[in-house]
């Protein structure tokens, strides 16, 4: 999505849940139920999508696109902090 124009909306990461099952008995679309996932060792890593900066360009990362490799996910308090 590097070629997507950059608007001024505040973009953020989003956790991706399982797609809701199609329910043909219900004519109105059901809202996607947000599931709160908590990461635990031995469990599947919560999938997500997030805007990213990568070597001079803006892009989008979906974690599950990279399954198949070993992944290291590092959170940190903030840019321009000292440690």
């Amino acid at each position, binding site marked *: 999505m590097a070629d997507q124009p950059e608007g001024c909306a505040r973009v953020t990461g989003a956790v991706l849940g399982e797609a809701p099952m199609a329910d043909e008995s219900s004519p109105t679309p059901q809202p996607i139920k947000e599931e709160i996932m908590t990461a635990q060792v031995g469990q*599947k890593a919560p999938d997500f999508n997030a805007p990213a900066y990568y070597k001079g360009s803006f892009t989008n990362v979906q974690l599950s696109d990279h399954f198949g490799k070993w992944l290291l996910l590092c959170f940190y308090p903030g840019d321009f902090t000292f440690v």
Partner: protein
Amino acid sequence: MSAVADKYQELKDLGCEVFSVSVDSHFVHKMWNDHELTKMVDGGIPFHMLSDQAGNIGRAYGVYDENQGIELRGRFIIDPDGVIQAMEVLTPPVGRRIAETIRQVQAFQVVRASGGAEATPAGWMPGDPVLKPGPGLVGNVWKEWKPNE
């Protein structure tokens, strides 16, 4: 993050991809990279720097601090099946030791390559003997491994 960037090639050689995440926008990531991190790491940050301004990802991983609106120093090793094998969470003032992360990746890779037949004892370093859990090892770990060696 410059410490991770500094060891990026080592991680890449292990087939490990890196993603950093904070609540800053990807625009700020660019500024931080361009104005500071490039002075610490040749060529700047070589991996994706993700933006999680609303803390959604941080919440899912249990590292979002609601009071401060920041993400704690959470580090997750995810295997090729997408399963979290290790996590470490530090409060902000203490930085990580990336060499330990690399050691853990190597250890998990050894275990995975053995199909779970091998385990790495405490303090294991690449090249050290591994343990093969089974009936013969019960009560006999002392023959195979000592904590002070």
